[in-house]
């Protein structure tokens, strides 16, 4: 890693002193497939002498074996580190590489150009201060160029370079360069991308990368490297009011209670007045620790532990902020969402949302619109598929402290997690809180669940029957209700077919509508159970996620899932309503079990095997189970 600096050999101590104070710039390379992103990074590493002899020898032999340059050095192979990438000659996942110059240290994220791997590009962009967008001079501005430029802008990267690459293949034509720059300028204007710098370049040859090389003099701008050395690093956070999401409560003994976290904005000193959000409590900073040292001040970007005056209740997920400029708190937002999972985003489905250090349950409304990244048109959408970008309203199960993403990546950016697969399925950027959530408060009522239960003589609860169409849910639920009624229990039966005639008559059978169908029923069942009724719900409810949502609305133990387990062949053979025949004939679309999936419960409270039990016996079983297992006392 022979650095240029002569100081290394002559005065290492002086070199280290100078190196110690270098700033750090994080940037990414992006753009369409094969525009030369990886080649550029390979070239930068090579030119800044970050490549060792043994690595160079390996590169030369790899280039001969799998290179795309006919045996000449293929710099992309320095960066495309996965076997699959080297075989296919493309980048699949982001690579993080490091180099430094005499002025600065750099972390670069080399991101994939393929649309299929957009989520990996977003991963690389989310931590970058600057972006280099590459274009193949022969191909000009492509859809992926636009998509990446749009994402760069969405993610709030303010320093952008447009590198028109492969100029060696167009004879360094100024006209080609000017045309491409003009086309990109017009697109950048439409998305509101701030000023950018354009340079002509050959990544492969290294022209205009670290040195001018054989770049012609019609272009006077900086080389890529000198631009990177001069780009401002994202430190404007220090000038803003103090914010710190609490990560961990530090309690070694009864005398010490510290709150650890990374300062997201501003600075903090002993004596500073703070407000805790969402609780709204106030306190003052007693001590500031960075590591084991008690310090007079800490800045945005540092990991600290604070002790405060007085005993106040603070836990992980709360946000500490300057008390004269507290953060907002809300439970409904408008946000841009980038969808990153093969399974589509379905409105109404419960996801987990992680913002700062807080994780809450959240659901998303139907997108207000989806963006066509090529034309920037707003399109109507019922859901978001993989790699789609849309604007949606999000509601969280409890209020969270936040800031608009434009002001703070740390308090305005969130991820969405699927509750079943635990995958990270989406990323969002908050625009603003919705007024109604800031103003509408939950009304605390005097007559509560317990009071109503006392009057009825039992607690309300939900018995949820799920199973294929024709499995026997309604028959069994109906019998159970009769038995409970005879025992003096207050009941109500919500049946799929009936509810679809009223409350849900606007809904069809697409995945989105099925989710909304169940969400509404679950909410209604919850209200009725709250009112003291034993609610029997008989719905196909094919998706695990929505049944989990229904369960999550009820207190622990007050939700009983009954799986009416009838194999598809048996239900189809019975075909009481003739629906299977129609579905098989193609007259009914999205029929559960035929062309729409049924996700069987994994751990239902009760499973009924209808091939072994008669409906009467099944109903008896459910009733007995409930009378035996459930605590009817109030």
């Amino acid at each position: 890693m022979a650095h240029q600096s002569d100081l290394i050999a002559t005065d290492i101590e002086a070199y280290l002193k100078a190196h110690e104070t270098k700033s750090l710039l994080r940037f990414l390379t992006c753009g369409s497939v094969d525009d030369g992103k990886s080649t550029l990074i390979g070239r930068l590493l090579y030119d800044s002498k970050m490549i060792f002899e043994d690595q160079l020898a390996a590169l030369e032999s790899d280039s001969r074996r799998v290179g795309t340059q006919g045996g000449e050095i293929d710099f992309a192979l320095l960066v495309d580190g996965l076997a699959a990438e080297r075989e296919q000659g493309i980048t699949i996942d982001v690579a993080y590489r490091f180099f430094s110059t005499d002025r600065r240290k750099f972390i670069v994220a080399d991101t994939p150009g393929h649309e299929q791997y957009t989520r990996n590009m977003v991963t690389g962009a989310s931590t970058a201060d600057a972006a280099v967008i590459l274009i193949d001079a022969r191909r000009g501005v492509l859809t992926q160029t636009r998509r990446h430029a749009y994402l760069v802008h969405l993610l709030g990267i303010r320093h952008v370079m447009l590198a028109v690459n492969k100029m060696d293949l167009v004879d360094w034509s100024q006209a080609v360069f000017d045309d491409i720059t003009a086309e990109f300028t017009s697109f950048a204007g439409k998305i509101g991308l701030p000023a950018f710098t354009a340079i002509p370049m050959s990544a492969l040859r290294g022209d205009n990368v670290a040195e001018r090389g054989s770049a012609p003099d019609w272009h006077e701008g900086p080389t890529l490297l000198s631009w990177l050395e001069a780009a401002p690093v994202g430190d404007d956070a220090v000038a803003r009011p103090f914010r710190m999401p609490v990560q961990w409560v530090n309690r070694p003994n009864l005398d010490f209670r510290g709150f650890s976290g990374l300062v997201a904005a501003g600075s903090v000193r002993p004596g500073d007045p703070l407000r805790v959000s969402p609780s709204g409590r106030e306190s003052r900073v007693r001590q500031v620790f960075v590591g084991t040292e008690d310090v007079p001040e800490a800045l945005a970007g540092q990991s600290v532990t604070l002790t405060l005056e007085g005993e106040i209740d603070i836990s992980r997920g709360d946000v500490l902020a300057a008390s004269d400029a507290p953060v907002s708190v809300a439970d409904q937002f408008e946000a841009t969402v980038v969808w990153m999972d093969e399974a589509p985003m379905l409105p109404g489905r419960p996801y987990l949302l992680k913002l700062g250090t807080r994780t809450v349950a959240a659901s998303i409304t139907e997108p207000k619109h989806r963006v066509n990244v090529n034309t920037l048109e707003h399109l109507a959408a019922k859901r978001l598929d993989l790699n789609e970008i849309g604007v949606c309203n999000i509601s969280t199960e409890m209020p969270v402290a936040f800031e608009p993403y434009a002001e703070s990546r740390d308090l305005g950016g969130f991820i969405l997690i699927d509750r079943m697969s635990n995958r990270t399925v989406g990323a969002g950027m908050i625009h603003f809180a919705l007024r109604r959530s800031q103003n509408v408060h939950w009304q605390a009522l005097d007559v509560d669940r317990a009071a109503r239960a006392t009057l009825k003589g039992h607690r309300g609860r939900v018995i949820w029957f799920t199973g294929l169409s024709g499995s026997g849910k309604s028959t069994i639920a109906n019998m159970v209700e009769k038995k409970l009624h005879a025992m003096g229990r207050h009941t109500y039966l919500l049946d799929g077919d009936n509810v679809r005639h009223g409350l849900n008559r606007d809904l069809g059978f697409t995945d989105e509508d099925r989710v909304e169908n169940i969400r509404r029923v679950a909410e209604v069942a919850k209200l009725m159970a709250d009112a003291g009724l034993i609610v029997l719900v008989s719905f196909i409810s094919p998706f695990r996620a929505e049944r989990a949502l229904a369960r999550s609305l009820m207190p622990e133990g007050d939700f009983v899932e009954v799986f009416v387990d009838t194999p598809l062949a048996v239900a189809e053979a019975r075909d009481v309503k003739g629906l299977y025949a129609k579905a098989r004939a193609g007259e009914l679309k999205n029929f559960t079990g035929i062309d729409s999936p049924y996700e069987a419960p994994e751990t239902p409270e009760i499973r009924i095997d209808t091939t072994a039990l008669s409906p009467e016996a099944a109903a008896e079983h459910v009733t007995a189970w409930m009378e035996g297992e459930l605590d009817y006392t109030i």
Partner: protein
Amino acid sequence: MTATGHQASLTHLQRLEAEAIHILREVAAEADKPVMLYSVGKDSAVMLHLAVKAFWPSRPPFPLLHVDTTWKFRAMYEMRERMARELGFDLIVHRNPDALEKGINPFDHGSALHTDIWKTEGLKQALDLHGFDAAFGGARRDEEKSRAKERIFSFRSAQHRWDPKNQRPELWRIYNTRKNPGESIRVFPISNWTELDVWQYIHLENIPIVPLYFSDVRPVVDRDGTLIMVDDDRMPLRPGETPMMKSVRFRTLGCYPLTGAVESTAATLPDIIQEMLLTTTSERQGRMIDHDQAASMEKKKQEGYF
């Protein structure tokens, strides 16, 4: 790393330190049973130091795990005991009982098998045995090209396999630590540090490291161009071979029969850094296990190697 005087922005080392501490705390807050893998090398030394800082004045809320092969340098065992004692960590040492019983060693069984059974299998055993769901490792992205592709929170299947083509998106400073039954997470707090960063941090923070990193006169033999230190009498000498006394040091530490020494007179940290900056070969060249085949690190990681 405290800010010196009134400072408007952080240095690169301050940013890296803050990021590492943030990651350590995130795991402590969200994992059920975390553990820190401790290999006694310089990267582990830095991780340990960061862990002390992250949780001070509390003790770090996880134990150290050393997956031992019985073939480490003696100076490493001494350092391990000293650090655990001085810093007040609980130390778990795991030696694969199958390897112990079969007497697996690099001389009779070759470097690949030795590493696979002691390290890869040993690590999986230890994690399963204790039910650790998150394990910190000191790997850095600048070490090797498949490491450069790995997330900071890297998921492993119940069989401890890494699937490089299916990594979770990892945005901003938000880490999704939720896992499916049987899955576990490897977490790399110093992912974004370079070899130079590690050395400079050790220098600035006065972090104790194994003396083998500094030059000294040591007994070595030349094995096919690699200088191997004769650290104990288990090392079989070839006919006519006698150890030479040479001034050498190590850029990376592992099992002594598999770790090449470099001839050097660098006896202080600035000397070491100077030598590293002027050198023309990479740190991993001293490790014999990486040369075995192209893309070998990626393959090893898919099989459950750290």
